[in-house]
């Protein structure tokens, strides 16, 4: 049961990432690329945990994938604000 839930979560991260990928292509706003990458990392985190047989999350360096995902998210937001044009349109 745990593996099933974990798999569902991983899939949901991946699908969200795919949507962000599409938004990046349509809107050409780089922020969405960052979001897509972040959610891909969340999915990788889930998949790795599943592959290792669902160990306790803190015991492995796998959590670095999750941290990496959030770092990418923060990086994307910083990047967005740096890029913002004076007129307010980024």
């Amino acid at each position, binding site marked *: 049961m*745990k593996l099933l*839930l*974990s798999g*569902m*979560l991983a899939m*949901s*991260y991946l*699908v*969200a990432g795919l*949507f*962000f990928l599409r*938004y990046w292509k349509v809107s050409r706003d780089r922020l969405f690329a960052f979001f897509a990458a972040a959610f891909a990392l969340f999915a990788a985190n889930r998949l790795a945990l599943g592959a290792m047989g669902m160990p*306790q*999350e*803190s*015991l492995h360096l796998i*959590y670095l994938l*999750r*941290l990496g995902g*959030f770092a990418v*998210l*923060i990086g994307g937001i910083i990047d967005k604000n740096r890029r913002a044009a004076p007129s307010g349109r980024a």
Partner: protein
Amino acid sequence: MMAEAVYLLCAATSVACAALLLRGYRASRTQLLFWASLGFLGLALSDVLLFVDLVLLPQVDLFYWRSGIALAGMGVLLYGLIWEVR
């Protein structure tokens, strides 16, 4: 201990995203932002529960609660991503 602090950081980031999206929703009334805000809130709660699970209540397994909330959050986020953008 390091991992636990990281999960709190993750939760904080999710909360920040949720707050920004909520502010954006108030400004633009775009439904997507409302759902996305809830989605990130769900992810934040899930990470907070993870911290609780590992640090505060190590004897209890909160896996199903954590995963349930995270899945609910992602469900709401995906709903917004799919239906609220043409």
